[in-house]
């Protein structure tokens, strides 16, 4: 891309937004022509029909996705709208979950009725948010991120190590320490028990719709505009007499309240809370949803939550995970090569390369093809030309993994024929590692995927799927 000035870039932004390019363009233009109401009805209808169409166990995935969407929306207020980098967000979620778990289980002698507990939890989480926003008066940017990150760490430390409040009471076990709190009661709304997956799903869906409506209006309001001003340039906003500190506080409060509410539902869904539910990996999951979908856009954030919440669940089933992997591989190939000739060259080269490697290595060392292939459709197809290792599988796949990563990195920096030459062994090794190792360890694969998605996303589309591109003016 040729270099253009910031002013020109800003000037052309509307024009650029209207003009789609590439292979997705027709679909996107058609989608834009649909009236907003139709789109909403379609999405909502699909969401409402979901539990009726899938088996009981799969509804659980829907619940995970909806919870993640709710949290992502809350984080979006703080990060996407107000531009405050809050790495302590997950602590509010944990706070809500623990608060609900404590008042709705045998930790305390008295159980609180749900309709009393929930408003108090939300208010308390909001108050905690207000408290955390106080340092944001002085700390800006990265320093605020650091402070909030440590707030989250302190929260986990506290619930893990200080189940009995020191100096207050030695008998009262509040948080259950590292064991967490099991046996949390379901929500009970005036006699109506929210105790099945289906009921939890619909409760979450209703709350989410209300939340989205509220946030949509908030974003369009005076406060929403002020947040954006704050995000783009705090100093300038302050000079225009925007009450900067009040707005920061408000953003933290709204985000924390949403997280607290989500937490109290989570505790009931899981029928228990454990310190590790609220550790850093989950914070990264929420961030991944917000970033992937497009920070600042409500639809984007919800879409991001669906993707981030649902894709890892696919990985649990080796068959579906295999499809995901090979489709992903094909998409990456198309994106990197763009034209069909090199794509064909790589594909043919790959299979030829595979047969040669298999032939040579089986002649030297029998064990290299002795393993049993994974029992899925593609794996059986791949079995013909990729090594399925018998002995020493771990050692060899470890090396293959490292070399494959080096290969992926060198594909990024090479061009032309060299790139094709690098791609072939890289893809081959990737398939080898997948068939021999990754497909068998879904939880690690999920982590790898998350990390890689965040890095790649930042490099190619930092604004996320549905976000708008912003220009940092320094």
């Amino acid at each position, binding site marked *: 891309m040729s270099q253009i000035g910031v002013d020109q870039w800003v000037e052309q932004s509307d024009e650029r937004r209207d003009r789609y390019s590439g292979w997705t363009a027709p679909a996107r233009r058609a989608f834009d022509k649909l009236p907003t109401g139709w789109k909403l009805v379609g999405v909502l209808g699909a969401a409402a029909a979901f539990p009726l169409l899938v088996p009981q166990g799969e509804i659980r995935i829907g619940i995970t996705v909806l919870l993640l969407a709710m949290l992502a929306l809350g984080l979006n207020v703080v990060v996407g709208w107000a531009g405050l*980098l809050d790495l302590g967000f997950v602590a509010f979620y944990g706070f809500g979950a623990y608060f609900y778990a404590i008042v709705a289980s045998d930790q305390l002698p008295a159980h609180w009725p749900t309709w009393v507990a929930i408003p108090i939890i939300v208010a308390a989480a909001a108050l905690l948010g207000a408290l955390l926003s106080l340092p944001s008066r002085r700390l800006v940017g*990265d320093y605020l*991120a650091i402070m909030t990150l440590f707030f989250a760490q*302190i929260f986990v430390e506290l619930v893990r190590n200080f189940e009995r409040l020191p100096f207050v009471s030695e008998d009262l076990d509040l948080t259950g320490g590292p064991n967490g709190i099991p046996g949390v009661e379901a929500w009970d709304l005036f006699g109506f028990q929210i105790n099945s997956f289906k009921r939890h799903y619909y409760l979450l869906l209703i709350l989410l719709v209300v939340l989205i409506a509220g946030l949509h209006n908030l974003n369009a309001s005076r406060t929403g505009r002020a947040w954006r001003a704050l995000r783009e340039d705090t100093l300038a906003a302050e000079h225009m007499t925007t009450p900067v500190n009040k707005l920061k506080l408000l953003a933290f409060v709204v985000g924390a309240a949403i997280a607290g509410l989500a937490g109290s539902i989570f505790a009931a869904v899981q029928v228990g809370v454990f310190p590790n539910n609220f550790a850093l990996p989950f914070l990264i999951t929420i961030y991944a949803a917000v970033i992937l979908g497009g920070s600042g856009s409500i639809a984007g954030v919800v879409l991001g939550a669906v993707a981030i919440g649902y894709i890892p669940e696919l990985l649990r089933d080796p068959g579906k995970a295999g499809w995901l992997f090979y489709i992903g591989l094909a998409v990456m190939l198309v994106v990197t090569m763009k034209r069909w000739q090199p794509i064909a060259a790589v594909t043919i080269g790959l299979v030829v390369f595979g047969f040669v490697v298999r032939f040579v290595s089986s002649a030297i060392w029998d064990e290299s093809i002795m393993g049993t292939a994974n029992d899925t459709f593609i794996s059986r197809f791949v079995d013909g030309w990729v090594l399925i290792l018998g002995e020493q599988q771990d050692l060899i796949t470890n090396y293959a993994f490292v070399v494959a990563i080096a290969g992926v990195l060198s594909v990024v920096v090479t061009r032309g024929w060299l790139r094709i030459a690098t791609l072939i062994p890289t893809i081959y090794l990737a398939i080898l590692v997948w068939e021999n190792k990754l497909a068998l360890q879904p939880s690690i694969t999920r982590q790898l995927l998350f990390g890689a998605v965040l890095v790649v996303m930042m*490099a190619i589309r930092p604004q996320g799927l549905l976000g708008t591109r912003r220009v940092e003016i320094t």
Partner: protein
Amino acid sequence: MEFFLQQTVNGLTLGSVYALLALGYSMVYGILKLLNFAHGEVYMFGAFAGYGVLTVLGGSSAPLVPIWLMILLMFVAAVVVSSTIGVALERFAYRPLRNSTRIAPLISAVGASFFLQAAALLLFTANSRSYDAPNLIAIQTGIPIGPIRVWMVRVMVIVTSAVLMILLTLWVNRTRTGKAVRAVSFDREAAAMMGIDVDKVIVITFLIGSALAGVGGVMVGLVFGRVFHLMGFVAGLKAFTAAVVGGIGSIPGAMFGGLLIGFAEAYTTGYISSTFQNLIVFALLVVVLLVRPRGLFGREELVKV
């Protein structure tokens, strides 16, 4: 008194390692204004590289080469592996984002950290590995200081990191490259206009920071004996605290902060309880940030409009 001295030595050992790690955070921040969250993982891979050399050369029970050479090779391997990862991170995760928004490299760093952690889990499994340090360097040998005896390993850690920090300070203050590093961290654009190859300076910074982290990883393995795939997270967090307390971007600040955190942790463990250890460290950070938002040695930045 004896107990106090013992804890002081513990604190000094821990603090030296934290300081080495904190230097990496601090130098990178000084130059790119980027929190390199993956730094802890770089350190973890360094520790594993040291372990790899140890295993290949026969372990501590039947070493194939003299012990001093073995330890030297472990350090060399750690430096090579760590700096390779560090430079790769810079090239692939951070350089494409040089002119992006402030949040983008941060997210990329978090992603890279997550990826590296999972990669370590995949390669080395979740079991922790033992350096078997007491067999490597006999516990009995040591230097008596007053009523206590300081193990050789600890002496080595403290001396090595002190030497490395002195070398680093000299390098930054006395050499041409060091001057370029200072210039880039002061004002990247102006430095580029003066003919400094900014990309090269950034790569060198990552190289040195990561190499120090690798050395720190092997040291931790030697002192505490255990390496595992999550070790980078906690140590990274602590070193990060150290860098921030000292004033992120400041090299003497990172050293001082590292020692401060080391002492705070050792005395808390010794006199109160190890449950409070992390809490005290984090609380220390929060208090310092509230009182001095730029850390102890950090300089206040003027915002130009």
